[in-house]
């Protein structure tokens, strides 16, 4: 059995990998996202930069339909996540912030399980698992329990798993948290290679400035609002800063309280 036909292969090249338009989400009375709009062009590496509590994970939960978006629109290669969830989710790969691998199963078993969740049969899943593990440099660990892997290797397996069904958009929610510098660099390089070679659109949520390269698109999210979006240079211009670190600090800076005025 093979993977379900992916509409992205027939989608016009102009379609963005991800388009989020006027999305608001609240937990009770507290707004986690407020009128958020952003775009991830196909074949781009877009860094979603925001401090802890910015709303990145909530946004990811809406894109992946873990939460239902009730306002605005989220489209994955033109497919509305709310109206056509199957079509949208079939072309979406995701690496969550918290580890989601089953530690008791082997690497290959985790990947084959994921394949079946996308309708890919066991044999085809096993073949594809070895293929993606080969690319991740982990083919020799295929039959080892996940429990025995290092943190960096687990993350690479999670990325390999997210690629099992050949998605056109890859979401990574702070994937380098808890990794050492070398593992972090290797992981970023692996994902950039995917963008360059396979034309996958990547949305990489992070609060680590060093992970952003000059060629990246950058979206700055703070307190549930988009503070800046564009190319590296455009974001620097919007913030009036010389470095992305200065731009980030400027964009997420809270306004000085005015004495006697309550906010």
């Amino acid at each position: 059995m093979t993977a379900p036909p992916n509409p992205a292969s027939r989608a016009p090249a102009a379609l963005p990998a991800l388009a989020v338009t006027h999305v608001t989400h609240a937990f009770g009375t507290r707004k986690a996202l407020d009128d958020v709009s952003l775009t991830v062009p196909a074949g781009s590496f877009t860094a979603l930069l925001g401090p802890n509590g910015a709303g990145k994970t909530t946004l990811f939960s809406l894109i992946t339909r873990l939460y239902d978006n009730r306002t605005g629109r989220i489209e994955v290669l033109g497919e509305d996540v709310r109206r056509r969830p199957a079509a949208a989710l079939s072309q979406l790969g995701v690496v969550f912030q918290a580890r989601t691998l089953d530690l008791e199963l082997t690497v290959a078993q985790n990947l084959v399980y994921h394949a079946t969740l996308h309708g890919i049969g066991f044999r085809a899943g096993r073949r594809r698992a070895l293929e993606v593990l080969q690319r991740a440099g982990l083919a020799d660990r295929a039959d080892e329990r996940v429990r025995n892997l290092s943190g960096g290797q687990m993350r690479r397996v999670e990325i390999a798993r997210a690629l099992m069904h050949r998605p056109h958009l890859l979401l990574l929610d702070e994937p380098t948290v808890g990794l050492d510098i070398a593992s972090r660099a290797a992981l970023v390089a692996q994902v950039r290679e995917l963008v360059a070679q396979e034309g996958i659109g990547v949305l990489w949520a992070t609060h680590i400035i060093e992970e952003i390269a000059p060629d990246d698109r950058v979206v700055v999210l703070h307190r549930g609002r988009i503070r800046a979006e564009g190319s590296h240079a455009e974001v620097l211009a919007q913030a009036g800063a010389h470095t992305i670190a200065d731009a980030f600090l400027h964009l997420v800076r809270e306004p000085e309280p005015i004495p006697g005025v309550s906010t």
Partner: protein
Amino acid sequence: MNTPPGGFRLSLSGYLVCMAGICWREGLRFLNQRGRFLSALVRPLVWLFIFAAGFRSVLGVSIIPPYETYVLYEVYVTPGLVAMIQLFNGLQSSLSMVYDREVGAMRILLVSPYPRWFLLVSKLLAGILVSVLQVYTFLAVAWFWEVELPPVGYVAVLPALLLSGFMLGAMGLVMSSVFRQMENFASVMNFVIFPMFFASSALYPLWRVQESSLVLWWICTLNPFTYAVELIRFALYGQFEPFAALVVALCALVFLAAAILAYDPSAGMMARRGGPEDAR
């Protein structure tokens, strides 16, 4: 299912593969967690070896269907213990489905392109298949304890186990989705499992309950678990109890529908506390 302009469609074989994958993973986890398997087995065996054996001389069971002669008390309680295995397993796996929905494996499951109702039903089915394995192992051990059932009963009980497993699993999913206080399994045991188990026909026939307390008899009669026990009891003797089957099937459908409606990841435990950590 809508077919988008790109021609994407979830095929029937894809649905079957997805369901098989979910069951396969549950089976692998079950094989890898021998402690979980043993603890699930020890509980009913303690009841059988100690409680039932101790009460053998105290509690007599007269000839009531499906039994054609006087039976040992151990024989009488066996269907109730089988249902208890399913009750524990159903509630335990349903609770984990609720509390894992915002972290862990449930996230990966829920971002599958297949519909949420189908994924939940598949996950319930996977849990039921595991409980069926536990039940058959229990029955094999019980056989050496003079609980010898007619051979046809070992086959006839399978559909009864699937049906009652769906009812109990879906019930667990509804309860744990709705009641936020049920945050650990100990409270579930105290407030759900034990009352359901004791206020049923698992340990004593309903006519005996009626003799001693009419109120308790009513409670037992209204308890869906009673019908699961009776469905299993008759099936173990190769007989079909239509009323029990009807009640269990109806309850399974109602609980399943309610569970699918109640299972909303955005209404999860973390969301109820004010949103996920990242959004605080």
